[in-house]
């Protein structure tokens, strides 16, 4: 047979702009590969059946559940996690993403466990829209509505989306 059928694979991918390589059993979930093989524990695992959204990461720019992907499926892909939201300020420090700033300002997190999934989903949503356009409730629902949070009751998260959108509009 010409096709290779494997139980283990070496994958190469770009995570938060950095080329990474890992040798993993083919059954390894992306969430586990990020956390345990690549040491990026900012991505959290809340249900492992795709409902809670805590493990959401961006694969080639789009939010996906990392517990519903095999690590081998992202071979060659670009992955962005919560650790990759802030950017270097060029002086050894970091500049937080507007959505990170907004979460702190609006008390949009309590225990913080679900937070990374919300942050990357909202970051992708806000980066993917025209910053000068008025933010609609429907857009906020799209960005917030697919993730579970047990602490905040969501009001502060919705407020943070508006806050971050305003920041991104102002800096435009």
């Amino acid at each position, binding site marked *: *047979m010409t096709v290779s059928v494997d*139980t283990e694979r070496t994958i190469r991918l770009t995570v938060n702009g950095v080329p990474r390589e890992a040798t993993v059993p083919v*059954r390894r979930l992306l969430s586990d590969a990020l956390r345990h093989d690549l040491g990026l524990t900012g991505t959290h695992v809340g249900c492992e*059946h795709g409902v809670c959204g805590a493990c959401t990461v961006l694969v080639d720019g*789009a*939010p996906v*559940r990392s*517990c519903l992907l095999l690590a081998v499926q992202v071979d060659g892909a670009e992955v962005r996690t919560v650790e990759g939201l802030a950017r270097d300020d060029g002086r050894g420090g970091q500049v937080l993403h507007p959505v990170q700033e907004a979460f702190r300002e609006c008390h949009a997190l309590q225990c913080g466990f679900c937070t990374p999934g919300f942050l990357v989903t909202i970051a992708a949503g806000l980066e993917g829209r025209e910053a000068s356009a008025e933010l609609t409730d429907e857009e906020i629902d799209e960005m917030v509505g697919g993730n579970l949070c047990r602490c905040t009751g969501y009001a502060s998260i919705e407020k943070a989306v508006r806050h971050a959108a305003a920041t991104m509009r102002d800096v435009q």
Partner: protein
Amino acid sequence: MKPAPFRYADPGSLEEALEVLSAEEGAKVLAGGQSLLPLLSMRLAAPATLVDINRVPGLDTVEATGDGVRVGALVRHNSLLGGHPQAMAAARVQPLLARATANVAHPAIRNRGTTVGSIAHADPSGEMTSVLALTDGSVTVATPSGMETVGWRDLFVGPLETSLSGPAVVTSAFFPALPDRSGAAFAEVARRKGDYAVCGAGVVVTLDEDRRVTAVRASYVSVGLTPEAHDLTDAVGGRSVEKADWAAAGALARTLVDPDGDLHASADYRRLLVGVLTERTLASAAVEAAERTPA
């Protein structure tokens, strides 16, 4: 909740995919994986080999023609909601596709899950199985002996069960176009937004040149063991679109379905919703049908 061991291949062509599927005992196709991965993690499914078709070229196309819309096996749900260059054209040819897709789970799931995958999964709680039935659609299946077309009635044989056996890859689904002088609508009741529907309804209303109802067809989500299409024309056929009694169509629909009860809805409640959603979607579809029928 970690998958049991399996072997993995990601063939670069349909031929290779079929080769692996033929060679490996207990092999299963992986496309979007949004239904399959939870089953693997809960160890409710433990295929010996996963054949990941994501690297197979040519399966991510959407073709919208006068006849209908053909959706390739790797087209993600969100592509039909605007991500794909042909999404607008597809929505014009068969608006039910996007209208139903908007009810599928949440955006992060829709970014990965595929229309064809949810059909191949044959979940009667899925929106796309229902739309395939409603539009009288079919799937194209690649097998070692060639390509086959399988109509929806022959495809769905039970909950999470299709008639496909042996090495096979569903390469596309075809949704016939919305007929002339027709309108369509889709609506769901779900416990939480994004959940599997407690009940969903899709309908197509077709008028004649005098804007009289000539055909009414409906299909439901989470009602029955397999997707079904129901002809409700008897309840309202021949009436002018403005005067049609959509509630009568709803009442007829209630007599035609045989829903089961579960944790989230009794059978009676589902039957109630079949009536209500039929009436409501028909009213909305009728407006569209009238708009598409010159007075």
